[in-house]
């Protein structure tokens, strides 16, 4: 680990209470959206959080941006504890900026791009005289040149890829130290995704940006991450330095996830180790390991006791009973539960 973290989260947890109408009776139910997630965002490092829909990854990003208040847990900015539950204030938003999935929904559509960017700067106390220079600077950092040809257009006049760059430029123009990017490329056309990913990577490399990259696209995480975290049902199930966990997944869920990714360069990936029980698939266990109902290796202990994170390699942890007693560096390979799909 290099420099000390800019933004650090310890045991962040967020529960939501939902009311379900059930036969006329209203019941309350607790949804454990994020539970006990700790992470550190350091300068020049991209931390990728990989998870499917409903895994809690966006709630995590919103807690880090202080849009959602955690139920419990601690947040530190440059080592200083943040009083959660208070108003976040301009200092925090200047340092920590959030970029969202849909750039069209993140811009005011009735104003020019220029207005959208200037507003961010003015709110943060910029003087009018310095606006043009700062806007040009921010646009250059996301490779939108010449800036004028984009600034004086309306958001709908730009393509998705261009507007997402504008959205990143808006985040950058207040000179943040932390960039939280929540699925920044998943709405973009395939051919322009790489351009935006390369910008995220170069901000970390060239400007020491501490970056959180949230995605469901494992291949893109493998492309830019310095540290990778896999979330399942609100919890971190596996984490590793670099992309070790993608190349050598230890946790059964990660193995399932990676085996499911279409991979034309690996013809053996056709068969997937899936537990085909639709009924169980919807359920997330309340006690024990949350993945137990779907896990091909489930043991009695998994159903009653929640596993802690075990070290399985250098900088590599897995929250699975299979890895207790330091079953180091022996990632279990998932056996194919059925024959490969016959090819025509």
């Amino acid at each position, binding site marked *: 680990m290099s420099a000390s973290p800019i933004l650090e989260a310890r045991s962040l947890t967020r529960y939501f209470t939902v009311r379900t109408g059930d036969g006329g009776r209203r019941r309350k139910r607790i949804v454990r959206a994020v539970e006990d997630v700790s992470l550190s965002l350091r300068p020049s490092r991209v931390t990728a959080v990989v998870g*499917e829909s409903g895994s809690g990854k966006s709630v995590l990003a919103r807690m880090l941006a202080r849009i959602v208040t955690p139920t419990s847990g601690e947040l530190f900015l440059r080592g200083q504890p943040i009083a959660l539950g208070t108003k976040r204030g301009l200092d925090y938003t200047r340092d920590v900026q959030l970029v969202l999935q849909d750039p069209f929904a993140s811009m005011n559509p009735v104003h020019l791009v220029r207005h959208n960017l200037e507003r961010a700067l003015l709110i943060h106390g910029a003087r009018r005289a310095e606006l043009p220079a700062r806007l040009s600077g921010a646009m250059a950092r996301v490779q939108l040149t010449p800036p004028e040809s984009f600034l004086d257009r309306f958001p709908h006049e730009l*393509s998705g890829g261009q507007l997402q760059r504008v959205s990143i430029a808006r985040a950058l123009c207040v000179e943040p130290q932390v960039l939280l990017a929540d699925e920044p490329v998943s709405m973009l056309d395939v051919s322009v995704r790489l*351009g935006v990913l390369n910008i995220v990577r170069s901000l970390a490399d060239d400007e020491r940006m501490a970056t959180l990259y949230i995605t469901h696209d494992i291949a893109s995480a493998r492309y830019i991450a310095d540290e990778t975290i896999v979330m399942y049902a609100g919890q971190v199930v596996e984490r590793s330095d670099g992309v070790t966990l993608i190349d050598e997944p230890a946790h059964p869920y990660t193995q399932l996830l990676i085996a499911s990714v279409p991979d034309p360069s690996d*013809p053996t990936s056709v068969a997937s180790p899936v537990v085909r029980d639709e009924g169980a698939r919807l359920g997330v266990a309340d006690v024990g390991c949350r993945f137990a109902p779907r896990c091909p290796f489930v043991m009695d202990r998994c159903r009653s006791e929640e596993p802690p994170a075990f070290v399985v390699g250098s900088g590599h942890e897995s929250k699975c009973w299979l890895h207790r007693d330091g079953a180091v560096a022996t990632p279990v390979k998932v056996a194919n539960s059925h024959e490969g799909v016959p090819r025509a």
Partner: protein
Amino acid sequence: MTVLEIRDLSVEYGLGEAAVHAVRHVDLDVPRSRVLGIAGESGSGKSTLVYGFTRLLRWPGVVAGGSAVLHVLGDDGSESDVDLLGATERELRSIRWSQISVVLQSALSALNPVRRIAKEFDEVLRVHRSRLDRRGRRARAVELLEMVGLDEDRLDRFPHELSGGQRQRIMIALALALDPQLVIMDEPTTALDVVTQREIVDQLFELRQRLGFAMIFITHDLSLLVELADEIAVMYAGEIVERASAAELHGAPRHPYTLGLINSFPPMHGARQELVGLPGAPADLANLPTGCSFHPRCAWAMEICKTESPKAQPVGDTGRLVACWLHDGIHEVPVELRRSVPERHPL
């Protein structure tokens, strides 16, 4: 043995000068019991193409020209042709669902939210399989659900009580209810998680193997297509720019756009290296560039590309078609676009 033959099909939105040319001069053949993949980004015309020849297009969409013929195989093995673009509503009704069925991306909006699932099956079977009584229809519905890996009790649920993957499985079961010869899948897994996508794709393949229907699978995810399609057509700005077997197309692309698209997917193996992808943005259909519509983004664009649009020509002797001036036999083909197909592809 083709099930569908499309020739010179063009589809436009709007009329006259203001028309948007969404699909331009597309030729396609779908062989019986095979999978044709159509890959393209949003706005490339891949869905419009399907809506065009299935006659599901709504105003202001109009089929501007071309033909689409469905070869229907009768029970006795005889073939009869249906001219899809000339067919009357009555004729269309007799082949829709029973010969051609479509599965759309959003299963939630395709299922009626205030009806139980059983009703959807019951209705189609009552109309098209009138000899079945109520119990027979229910039995057939249970059989169809079992085929896609769902339990009988799902029949009595409402769509909102099911997960996205379960709903999409129901759409697939419905599409197969009348044993169609051609099933069209329009981004059926795009809204789903990768694990669910994998399950559904595997299931589709088992079913196709067993039932022998032909499939058109539309997606923007080229890596998925390489795994599941026999042949892939790549669309850009309303045209098919390259068509080849899956292994050839992915292992040895010939069109610069195909190459760029493949390079836009970061790999799951090997050393990490910076990828460039494609510069610029996808072509604006309302304001197409002159000549080849890909030339503004093409690294090898020549003078001729700016003025004249290339026609699809056979390249090599495997039936591959490429619409690119680089492959006209006169110009030097860049080394990236004349690689041979790697051996390791067992597809």
